[in-house]
């Protein structure tokens, strides 16, 4: 190939500021426009506060709840349950996933149980969780856990199974012990898969937090949304939804960053 024909060797074409940030500019403008229209309709009194609310009302509600209400405690409560539940899910999911992925016979034995549990909508188990753990913190944590556990487990198993046999053979040829093979080939090779599981666990764990708090208990953002709905405080419901959505965006973004950071060695996908 002649060097100048190689697109990799040509200097990158000059791109304007707009071209570089096209997605951000278009997407951002659309969001701002939608908010403006919504706010205008709200200000014009076209929206019934019983069924809907306006952006400024949500902001106002946020200020009030933050300074006078118990928003901070609720966020802390939900946040802690999320962190504990997802943390437990990731640590146990990775360990069990590596073991199940490595030992084929063990996989055959536990697979039916996993498939059954995995296919059951986790919400259906909530009454059972309440019987076991009551309505306190640990039932919430457990609901987060069962939501977040399976994506980590399933992805880790997949990652271990996708390990290149050639790499195992190379390690063995250099007299690698089983534990060396685990730490130098199996675990690092599974990391990108594990992180895909973590990303899914984060979003499913968030669902778990909210759903768990809607069933019994009297704390947390999920409870706040539920209570707001029952008492026709539409703006409180909106505030809760916005907070959850924001947490989801930030957490997913962080998980994606992490995933990309640890997948640097992979060829361009």
């Amino acid at each position, binding site marked *: 190939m002649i060097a100048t024909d190689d697109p990799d060797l040509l200097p990158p074409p000059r791109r304007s500021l707009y071209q570089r940030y096209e997605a951000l500019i278009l997407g951002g403008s659309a969001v701002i426009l939608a908010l403006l229209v919504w706010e205008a309709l709200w200000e014009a009194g076209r929206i019934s506060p019983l069924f809907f609310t306006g952006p400024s009302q949500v902001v106002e509600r946020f200020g009030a709840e933050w300074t006078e209400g118990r928003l901070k405690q609720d966020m802390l409560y939900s946040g802690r349950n999320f962190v504990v539940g997802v943390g437990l899910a990731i640590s146990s999911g990775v360990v069990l996933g590596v073991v199940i992925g490595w030992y084929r016979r063990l996989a055959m034995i536990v697979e039916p149980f996993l498939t059954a549990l995995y296919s059951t909508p986790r919400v259906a188990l909530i009454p059972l969780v309440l019987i076991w753990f009551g309505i306190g913190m640990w039932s919430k944590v457990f609901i987060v856990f069962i939501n977040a556990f399976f994506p980590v487990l399933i992805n880790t198993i997949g990652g271990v199974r996708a390990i*290149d046999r050639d790499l195992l053979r190379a390690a063995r*040829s250099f007299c690698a012990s089983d534990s060396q093979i685990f730490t130098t*080939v199996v675990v*690092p090779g599974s990391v990108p898969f594990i992180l895909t599981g973590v990303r899914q666990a984060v979003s499913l764990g968030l669902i778990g937090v909210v759903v768990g708090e809607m069933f019994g208990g009297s704390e947390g953002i999920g409870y706040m949304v539920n209570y707001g709905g029952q008492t026709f405080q539409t703006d409180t419901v909106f505030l809760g939804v916005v907070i959850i959505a924001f947490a989801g965006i930030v957490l997913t973004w962080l998980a994606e960053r992490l995933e990309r950071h640890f997948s640097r*060695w992979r060829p361009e996908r």
Partner: protein
Amino acid sequence: MSLAVADGEFVAIVGPSGCGKTTLLNIIAGLLTYDDGSVSIDGAAIRGPGVNRAVVFQHPSLLPWRTIAGNVRYGMELQKRFDDAAMRERTDGFITLVGLAGFERHYPSELSGGMQQRVNLARALASDPAVLLMDEPFAALDAQTREHMQLELLKIWSQARKTVIFITHQINEAIYLADRVAVMSPRPGRIKGVFAVPFDRPRPLALKRDPRFLEIEDAIWRTVEEQPDRLGIGGTS
């Protein structure tokens, strides 16, 4: 079959695909067990992989999440025969020897197939084996890279002076590289003949067109072809 390889000797084993060359190499490497017969190094029977052997695989088999330096280090790291300073020194030395100085921090996916095979070779050499086992290491490379790598391998071998067992299905590659060429036949896998290669070293690539070279190549071809159960080379197996 029986084959003895002397210390410091470069022996190539040729034969059609499926004749068991790779199986033989894997047995010597200790990656496969054998039912009968005996395989030994310096009188000690082979029971599994050992630090006196290192394999250069047909596929580079590099850890994609490790840099080039990390991969060259890998074999030494597993075997724990060198302290950290020695490992670092050997890593640098062998990366330079295979001509990859400056690529230490690159990842394998950023390298061409030929360069990845150099890393594969450096990793094997760095672990300081007595015997280097090479399993068609250049088979996946294009013809030009392949010739270049053959030349390089001889240069490296003249410095590192290891016993080499080199598996290939290319007869001229075997003659060009080796002191002796063993011809293997399939079903049952056995050695049909061993040819000594008389050429002095260093050997220029032009040697491949020398009449004496072609004569040996011809003789080996005839030995390969006179197998009763085959209709010639390159068939399915």
